[in-house]
């Protein structure tokens, strides 16, 4: 291995990247754009679920209950109905996904029997949203019940603490606000870097074949390893800049709490970028046309990364064979690492397993890519 040749290749490649401002701009702006789209677009929280309200009784007490439900923040009233059939219409038009019906004798029943029903009708075409909405509703009703109990107790001169009850005291760690964005954004960063990184290098060898410069390059004593290292160095810098962009956006724009060390973040991110760039390089070596290489890079990174990296769909919930498959989906390691660094503040010692996964991946891919590059035309 000859350091001078590696540097010559790296310098040449840098000049070429620099002289192609359009692709450089794409390489640097694309991640930010994707970050914005995915960061805002993907959220598992459901806020302001549109509900219709059909309050048959419509007195101070029932209005208070509806007010309590809305003030939880999870729901907002899209329509107030006066007839039962209005619910069906509203759901058909998509004005609401839930309807709350309070019967006409609500107050009387509550006063006489101590309990009264509130009906919730849900549009279950989107099961996930429906389940979450039910959860929120139950939570809201629970709060209302507690309020009613407290009022009753006060009215009867009993201290609330004297009522026997078991309280569940929840304490959520690492993502205290239970904001799914804190969980998603680190995954988004991993997905974007995996996609963009492979795109960056997928063109580099294919371009030389297409432009006819490869024929002359392979007639020199340069080795396959030198070509790979020389070409990866400048893209590694571009990849790191992309990573800085995305991670900074995650921490400052999306306000994901960052609790880990910058050093751990740097080491693991560098390792991940190395893997990602080398995957693109390997594709470029095997497929000698730019268009083909770029499409293959997209194909083999996009689907596995979005579906199997655990960035939206929890790996623990997958059936065993699919779960086994995720071990070859390299972004899963980085998704795990990033979440742990951001939310738990984990260090390298805690993250040895996914880091080792990335390292093994890097070694295998570098070995494959170095072998795949043949200094022959056929």
């Amino acid at each position, binding site marked *: 291995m000859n350091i001078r040749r590696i540097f010559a290749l790296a310098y040449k490649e840098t000049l070429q990247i620099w002289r192609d401002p359009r692709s450089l701009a794409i390489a640097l702006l694309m991640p930010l754009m994707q970050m914005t789209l995915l960061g805002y677009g993907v959220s598992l929280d459901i806020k302001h679920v549109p509900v219709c309200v059909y309050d048959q009784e419509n007195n101070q007490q029932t209005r208070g209950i509806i007010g309590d439900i809305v003030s939880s923040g999870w729901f907002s009233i899209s329509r107030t109905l006066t007839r039962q059939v209005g619910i069906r219409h509203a759901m058909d038009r998509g004005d609401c996904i839930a309807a709350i019906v309070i019967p006409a004798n609500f107050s009387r029943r509550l006063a006489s029997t101590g309990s009264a029903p509130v009906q919730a009708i849900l549009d279950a075409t989107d099961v996930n949203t429906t389940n979450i909405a039910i959860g929120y509703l139950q939570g809201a009703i629970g709060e209302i019940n507690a309020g009613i109990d407290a009022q009753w107790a006060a009215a009867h001169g009993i201290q609330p603490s004297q009522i026997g009850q078991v309280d569940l005291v929840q304490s959520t760690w690492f993502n205290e606000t239970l904001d799914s964005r804190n969980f998603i954004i680190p995954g988004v960063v991993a997905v974007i870097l995996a996609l963009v990184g492979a795109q960056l290098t997928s063109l580099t060898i294919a371009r030389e074949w297409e432009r006819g410069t490869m*024929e002359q390059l392979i007639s020199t004593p340069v080795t396959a390893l030198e070509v790979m290292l020389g070409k990866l160095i400048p893209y590694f810098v571009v990849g790191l800049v992309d990573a800085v962009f995305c991670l900074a956006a995650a921490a400052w724009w999306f306000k994901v709490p960052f609790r880990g060390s910058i050093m751990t973040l740097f080491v693991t991110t560098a390792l991940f970028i190395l893997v990602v760039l080398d995957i693109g390089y390997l594709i470029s070596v095997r497929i000698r046309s730019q268009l083909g290489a770029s499409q293959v890079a997209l194909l083999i990174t996009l689907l596995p990364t979005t579906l199997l990296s655990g960035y939206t769909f929890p790996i623990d919930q997958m059936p065993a064979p699919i779960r086994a498959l995720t071990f070859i989906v390299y972004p899963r390691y980085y998704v795990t690492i990033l979440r742990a660094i951001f939310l738990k503040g984990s260090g390298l010692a805690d993250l040895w397993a996914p880091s080792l996964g990335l390292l093994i991946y890097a070694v295998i891919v570098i070995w494959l890519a170095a072998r795949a590059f043949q200094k022959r035309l056929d």
Partner: protein
Amino acid sequence: MSATAPEITIRTQGVSRSFGGVLAINKVDMAILQGEIFGLVGPDGAGKTTIMRMLAGILAPDSGVISVDGVDVVRDAEVAKRHVSYMPQRFGLYEDLTVKENLFFYGELFSVSRKDRLARSKELLAAAGLQPFQSRLAGQLSGGMKQKLGLVCALIHTPRILLLDEPTTGVDPVSRRDFWAILYNLRESGVTIVLSTAYMDEAERCSRLALLHAGEIRHCDTPERLKQAMPGALLAITSQDPRALRALIADRPGVLGVLLMGDRVHVRVDDPSRRIPELTTLLAAQGVADAVITPAEPGIEDVFVALVGAQTPL
């Protein structure tokens, strides 16, 4: 040429190569001597590029032995590449790099010292007339300048062997002259040059030629001896309408071949002393009054057609 017998620098034995079942090169044997300018001559598709690529070690033969500078290219291509420079037919340098940057890059690939690189690029750029364009992007050079830059880059590490695949195709006459001046200089310093060409006038400048047709070397010798080996003698006939003339003469007795050369036809005959009067009579009888028949020196194109029996593209 030195007094001692020059060594064989490149040798091929029984080299064959096919692409997708089609035989492109068929059992090629060559022995190229140190310090000669060896020309591979033949029409497009004759197999020139395939041979050049195999000599450069970037294409493996199906069978046969290739040795370059004492190294078995089929087995140790990487060793041979240290002292060989190859200039592909298609421009192989980086168009988005400047002249100077391309030179730097290829100098570094061959580990040329900074001092040597600067001295050598100065000298080579001057010889190629490229000095004023050092900071120009290679993609913005003219066709001739590109080829000269290719040559300069190929020479930056002082190779022992230079392989040039159709180096002057599409090159203007002035650039071509610069190009050849550099090649002659190299030969003086003992560099072995192999070049392929479809230009017959260029072929004449080579010290030895291999006439290549359909993947086989049909003849291999110096241009002079090839001309002597041509059967028959050559006549040139000028006329207003050379095409009509060719049609008229082609099937006459004693006419071995007729070749259209711009405003003239080259007619190869078995016995000029007998055929000149015959042709004169014929042309007069056919009313071709302006025709002038003179004995002519054969060019490589005439020789190629006569010896190989095929029409060259030019």
